[in-house]
């Protein structure tokens, strides 16, 4: 098989594969996202800026930039990027550190860097660079990865970035995604299952312990709002959002009202009530709840199915990639998108505690869309290495 891969790579590009399905799904999600960004933000944008398309225009601008970047990346053979793996890692660290002096604060979190008119989230850069770095590292390690030393190396390398994202940018969800991407790439690269099952069990046990501890602490510190208790308020608000309706549970409650009141068929596109100031900044992380309110269970399912199709395309491309590096790049992007979608929907439906995380391609946010499109460009570039007759 290795033989065949090598021969395939030598083939002329014109006979190679362009994944239009993937491209179409991404374009559909972007288009749908823009409709929903307009629907969710127009009322508030009109009140605040006197221009109901204020957010939509910014989103269109970022999307066009992103699409251009995607097409450029898609046309560059993906091995070109391998040499930047280490530099990328260092750039990520530097960018995150730059947040401390130059970070721009918005919504109570310091997560943005402004370069001229363009805002940049170092977390997005870090996710992309991490995919690249790990793919390169795993390929370099070869069979060493089967040993414990290699295994832990791959797991430890993203930890500094994850810790910095968590502590400096106060962005736990990005940290989780970085670690999640690493774990998934490692999982694909290793032949065994045992260690991963143990790792997963340890993770679940750890999460359960945190939940138990926070409930226990809250009970023993009843009446005390300061101190340790309030750190776990997010978890307590998850367990009983209505009890924390004016604080940490507020956003969750409003999202649940939106989702629940949507019902099976929804109120109709544009007819959300919750976006009229009840659910603040509905175009951001909580956009899925407004999709559910306006388009109902069917709309929500349709969005999930689109993401499932996207992931399925990723899987097909990964499994037909010309080499391991390409496959790992695609697996990394798959992990990024899938984890982020699942976390987002889980947060919005209050399945897990609230943590700020956007819905890929749909939520408002320029740097998120741009870096996601660059990642899609990478995947398309890998896909171009596939010969049509091999499919």
């Amino acid at each position, binding site marked *: *098989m*290795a033989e065949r*891969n*090598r021969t395939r*790579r030598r083939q002329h590009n014109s006979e190679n594969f362009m994944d239009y399905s993937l491209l179409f799904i991404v374009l559909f999600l972007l288009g749908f996202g823009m409709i929903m960004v307009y629907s969710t933000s127009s*009322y508030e944008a009109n009140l605040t800026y006197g221009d109901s398309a204020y957010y939509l225009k910014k989103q269109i601008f970022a999307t066009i930039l992103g699409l251009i970047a995607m097409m450029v990346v898609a046309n560059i053979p993906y*091995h070109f990027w*391998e*040499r930047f793996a280490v530099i990328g890692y260092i750039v990520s660290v530097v960018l995150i550190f730059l947040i401390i002096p130059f970070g721009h604060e918005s919504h109570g979190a310091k997560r943005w860097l402004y370069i001229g008119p363009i805002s940049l989230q170092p977390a997005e850069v870090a996710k992309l660079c991490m995919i690249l770095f790990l793919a390169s590292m795993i*390929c*370099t390690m*070869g069979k060493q990865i089967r040993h414990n030393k290699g295994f832990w190396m791959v797991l430890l390398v993203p930890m500094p970035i994850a810790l910095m994202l968590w502590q400096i940018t106060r962005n736990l969800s990005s940290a989780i995604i970085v670690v999640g991407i690493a774990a*998934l790439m490692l*999982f*694909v*690269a*290793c*032949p065994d299952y045992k260690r991963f099952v143990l790792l997963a069990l340890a993770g679940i046990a750890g999460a359960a312990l945190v939940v138990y501890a926070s409930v226990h602490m809250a009970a023993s510190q009843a009446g005390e709002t300061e101190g340790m208790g309030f750190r776990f308020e997010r978890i307590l608000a998850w367990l009983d959002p209505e009890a924390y309706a004016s604080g940490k549970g507020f956003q969750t409650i409003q999202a*649940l*009202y*939106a*989702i*629940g*009141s*949507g*019902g*099976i068929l929804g109120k109709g596109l544009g007819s959300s*009530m*919750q976006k*009229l*100031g*009840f659910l603040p900044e509905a175009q951001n992380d909580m956009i899925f709840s407004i999709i*559910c309110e306006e388009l*109902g*269970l069917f709309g*929500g*399912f349709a969005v*999930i199915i689109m*993401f*499932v199709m996207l*992931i*399925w395309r990723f*899987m097909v491309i*990964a*499994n037909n*990639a*010309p*080499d*391991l*590096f390409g*496959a790992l790049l695609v*697996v990394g992007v*798959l*992990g990024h998108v*899938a984890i982020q979608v*699942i976390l987002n*929907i*889980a947060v919005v*439906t209050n*399945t897990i505690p609230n943590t700020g995380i956007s819905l890929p391609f749909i939520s408002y946010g320029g740097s998120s869309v741009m870096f996601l499109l660059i990642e899609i460009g990478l995947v398309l570039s890998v896909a171009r290495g596939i010969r049509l007759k091999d499919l």
Partner: protein
Amino acid sequence: MMEEKPQPHMTYHRSKTVAVMFLFLFLFAVLMGRMVYLMVFRSEYYTMRAKELHERERSIKAARGRIIDANGRILADNRTVCTISVIHSQIEDAEEVIAVLCRELGLSDEYVRKRVEKYSSIEKIKSNVDKSVGDAIRACDLPGVKVDEDYRRYYPCGSLGSKVLGFTGGDNQGIIGLEVVYEDYLKGQNGTILTVTDAKGVEVDAEGEERVEPVAGRDLYISMDMNIQSYATQLALQTLETKEADSVSIIVMNPNNGELLAMVNVPEFDLNDPYTLPEPDRAAEAAETADGAETGQEQETEDASEQDRLNAMWRNGCINDTYEPGSTFKIVTAAAGLESGAVSVTDTFHCPGYIMVEDRRIRCHKIAGHGAEDFVQATMNSCNPVFITVGLRIGAERFYSYFERFGLLKKTGIDLPGEAGTIMHRLEDIGPVELATMSFGQSFQITPIQLMVTAASIVNGGVRVTPHFGIRAVGTGGADEEAFCYPVQENIVSAQTSETMRYILEKVVSEGGGKNGAIEGYRIGGKTATSQTLPRSSGRYIASFLAFAPADDPQIMAMAIINNPQGSYYGGQIAAPVVRQLFENILPYLENMDYNKK
């Protein structure tokens, strides 16, 4: 570079990528399950909660039912008033709005400007604005200015029947009188306007508004005849003035069915202004001298005493207060005596001017004594020794059982709030002296309406009726008509006893102590009373007279009670003429009205 590091792309990589896919598919399935739970099974709950969050409710007051007298005259009505408010977000020309509101409402520019320019969802400018002014503002058709109509209770007859009709409070709820008792019929059902608003409370036009129309209250038709009420009030006021009494009450009732045609308690108060106390007058001065020693304490309890004075002003003496009925109660003693056989009309007695009961010497009002007299004459003379004799003959136990049978121990069940109960000895405490005093209407207390109803049942053939004003409630356009039924107890006394009592009481008016109540051409029965109030040393009296006509077939019964008259205080002298004047006017009127010939 690519050639240097050929990486094998193993099969297990592929199967693991598929495993990753399935892991994510599983997680998506879990989330979809969660969505089904939220959007199907919990949808109703969240929809309800969201709706509560999005809707603002404004209520539309229901028009309160009117109160209408026996002749169709409206005694309590609603007047439309307007509330003017501004909605900041809908105002287009703030200056014009300020100018118009200042002009029409007569408010200062500063006051209006402050409210118009305030950023709030809705700001009230002025309430209780006349409808004409509200209409004028509405005619200007200014965006952002809301004119909401509202109702305020209005009593066209002012103070007439004030203590009976009662008035309403700020939320149009009954405070006293019929307004309280018939609250459920009168109040109707408020409507609501539900408007959908955004988080700041600004109405979302596209959603429109949901209206639940108010249901107007039902009109209450009562038996009060405002012509009689009005004339009785004049008479009572006149008596109040000339006799310098504390209060004068007049009740007019149909003894056959308990319908009350008038109930006067002067001084009355203005129903359209029920919270204004009268100027400190003679009554207040009298109260002050009586409580002279307590003036120091009065200062501290200023607020409490203000409320107490209001309650005193609103008090309906005919039903809220008890008194010792005195000689009018001899009707009951006589009926009990006749019914029990303890006395017959032809029995003869001798009155020496007093009677000894155990060791007590109880005087007759005529110190010289009435001498020899039969029972009819004794009643005409209102002779205490004779009634004591009759009472003692009946005996405590039987007398008590007649009290019970006549309904004197229960309340009458009149449809007015706060009826007072009877204050009576317990049976085991009734010794000869108590029995003797009870026989001529002392040592126990009943309400005037109780005496009236008991007397009615004795002269009407033995039917105890429930006194009432409410006849029927009728909804808008005649819908929901409900005629009220009142309990009736028959065979209180035999027809024979009743007939005898009518005969005796006619004699009282035609030849006896009640002759000041006689009117030429009419057969009138009645009984006078003069009772001294407690403590006996106070020198305060209550003069009363109860009469009915025609004496052989009572169709109308009236009672006048004069509380603490100055000068002459005998019921026969001062109360009987009041009822006579009343009857002189209303008997021809009632014949005209064909009221008696139902």
